[in-house]
């Protein structure tokens, strides 16, 4: 059986986890944050940290799916991708518009 469905499923898992990881980290950071405009400059750049974790989470998820999901299951998941990917990614994007 072809390895392609597993690869596509791994890519999709990586993308979804990347978007959810970034949004989750940003929402987590926003709890207890001082009001916008009251801090002119931070000592560290949280964005860089979020990107680093984003990459690790996405790569980890893609690897886990590629290793742990068989081709038949991957094909079933691919059939759900047209509604599942927007259902997970777009709310994360909207959340980022609401928490700058």
């Amino acid at each position, binding site marked *: 059986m072809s390895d392609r469905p597993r690869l596509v499923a791994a890519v999709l898992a990586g993308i979804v986890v990347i978007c959810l990881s*970034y949004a989750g980290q940003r929402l987590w950071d926003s709890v207890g944050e001082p009001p916008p405009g009251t801090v002119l400059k931070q000592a560290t750049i949280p964005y860089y940290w979020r990107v680093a974790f984003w990459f690790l989470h996405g790569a980890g998820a893609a690897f886990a799916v590629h290793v742990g999901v068989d081709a038949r299951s991957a094909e079933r998941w691919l059939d759900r991708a047209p509604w599942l990917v927007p259902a997970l990614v777009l709310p994360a994007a909207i959340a980022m518009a609401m928490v*700058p």
Partner: protein
Amino acid sequence: MDVPSPTLFALLERIHGHLAWLGLALMVHPVFALRRPGPPGRPTRTSAWLAAGLVTAPYGIGWLIYPTYRERVKPGLLIDALPYALAFETKEHLALMTLALAWGGALCLHFGGGSPAGRRAARVVFACGALTGVATGLLGIIVASRAHGAW
């Protein structure tokens, strides 16, 4: 990288914005091209990879000029035009998602272009990326209208 002059900063900022819109335009192409049944042709595959590349290049330029923005532009924006400073932050978040979706779409098409399910997956990923990309680009235009380097 510390950009030494406002003129160079403005130039890099414009290249960053224009390349991003080019990448975004290319990202829309597979969304429509993949509606046709059958494996994608070379133009669709090429536009998918070019879209990923052309979204990555401005992202890289953004990383280059970000330290200067943070030092020389952002504090003024936070004081004088807070909504624009916040719009920039949102733009950063959405740009990152767009970058991931552009590469995701290109990789889905590369690995799954031979099957209808793989093509559908690539199409939906590119469509999501185009949506977040348009939002990013519009926010970029709004922020650029107010954020100028002046030192």
